């Protein structure tokens, strides 16, 4: 079976994983915030070495397409699109909130929320079975208060928005912070059924989910 790559760069840290079928060959996560460009490529090189592969052997790429930091979202998608263009590879965009919810593995109501800056939170609610999320409602961009009020009692909550969910820790279960980061293994797990269904995109079809329009602050040199 051909190897494929999954990656996430939408958050403060990056994550990369190599797969053969639904078997994870190697995964690597980490880095410092806003250092994706410097850190991802040496990590990718090392990951390929660990898996005994060349990057050119990768035959498909799954990538988170947002929400996330504008630059981070672009970084992951640019890597995927470029690999896609090089080898005419099928690409599989994955929603960041869905990849995050997949960290929960099992749950009837899993709320994945991200700090969307400007005092807002973006979150989605999922049922998760066997590590695969099924969306229960469309993602929403809200205030932290609204976010807290929208979480049904008994929900599992994870993601950077959890800082705001702590006041309700008696009614919801906030998962441990190490699960608040998107893992490339989760991205790949979510993408695997899409691959089985042949639901791929070409590089020209990959669109970032920025959530917000661009700020129109003119640059002054």
């Amino acid at each position, binding site marked *: 079976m051909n190897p494929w790559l999954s990656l996430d760069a939408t958050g403060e840290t990056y994550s990369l994983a190599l797969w053969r079928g639904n078997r994870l060959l190697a995964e690597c996560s980490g880095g410092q915030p806003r250092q994706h460009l*410097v850190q991802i490529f040496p990590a990718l090189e090392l990951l390929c070495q660990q898996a005994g592969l060349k990057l050119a052997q990768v035959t498909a790429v799954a990538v988170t397409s947002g929400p996330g930091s*504008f*630059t981070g979202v672009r970084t992951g998608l640019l890597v995927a699109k470029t690999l896609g263009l*090089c080898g005419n590879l099928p690409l599989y965009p994955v929603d960041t909130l869905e990849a995050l919810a997949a960290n929960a593995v099992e749950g009837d109501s899993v709320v994945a929320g991200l700090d969307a800056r400007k005092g807002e939170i973006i979150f989605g609610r999922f049922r998760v079975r066997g590590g695969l999320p099924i969306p229960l409602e469309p993602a929403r961009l809200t205030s932290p208060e609204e976010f807290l009020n929208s979480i049904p009692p008994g929900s599992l909550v994870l993601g950077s928005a959890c800082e705001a969910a702590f006041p309700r820790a008696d009614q919801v279960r906030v998962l441990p912070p190490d699960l608040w980061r998107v893992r490339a293994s989760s991205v790949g797990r979510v993408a695997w059924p899409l691959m089985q269904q042949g639901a791929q995109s070409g590089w020209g079809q990959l669109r970032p989910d920025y959530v917000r329009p661009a700020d129109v602050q003119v640059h002054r040199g």
Partner: protein
Amino acid sequence: MSNYQRREPFQPALVLALETSCDETSVALLRNGREVLCNRIASQEELHARYGGVVPEIACRRHFEVIHPLLEEALQAAEVKLEDLDAVAVTHGPGLIGAVLVGVTVAKTLALRLEKPLLPVNHLEGHLFSPLLEHPELEPPWISLLVSGGHTCLVLVESWDSLRLLGKTRDDAAGEAFDKVAKMLSLGYPGGPRVQKLAAQGNPEAIALPRPMRGQGYAFSFSGLKTAVHRARDQHTPADLCASFQQAVIDVLVEKTLAAAEEFGVQRISLAGGVAANQPLRTALGRDCRQRGLSFFVPSFEYCTDNGAMIAMAGYQMARLGVIATTGLDAHASLPLQAWRTT
């Protein structure tokens, strides 16, 4: 992590270059360090015009959208395949950081995937070497006047691996001053071509504007000139204001460039950067060089604005010196000339 590493010098037969440092996305292919096979430029000028300047996040989003289609078009137009490349060159600064990141991310992915060396180019070095695209006979030493919307400086190219910054602007870049005067006179954005057009109908001697920093070495300053234009605004026609302003800028640029040539005993002068597209400046500097028996080199308009071909040329020069990027290459908002020299 270091940006650069040394290896044995090489001459890549086919260089692909990406440029995304400001509001132009460009992809170019250069054969044997001489022949431009293709130089695609997607300008975002219209996108930013309504804001009166470049909006960084809008620029980043557009670079993201167009870079891959542009890359595909360039390869098709030049009839080459990615596998044919011998090196990938990319602007890694200075520029709008988010914009630079787009080009560098794509270039790093290409280099790693194709297992080809990555040539990390300083955007200013791209402009400095742009005259070589059409004048392969140009050899160091030469004096380069680099004028654009973001930069105004005089550089002595002592040898292929030694660039000496003689002076730069202390405030506004020349192109920035054109933009600001255009804005003051409600001419719209970008200002350069509009000021030039209106100036053609005015009298360059109508207003006695200052010649900032005249006789004070190689540093420039244009913000005082802009203020002087503002003060004269009500007593003169826009055409006369533009003509007098443009003449003042040209006088200062030409004078300092010629003074540098004399001080360093250099026989060759080049003009580069977006403002090098200003026809009266090209004419004035060309004429004065001829009068003094100096050779004058200026690129076609296509190679004055930001473009991939000049990045490919500068990248080719780095390959000849054996400097390539590490996989840890970063993007930089500001980047001194020849930052790679310490490697």
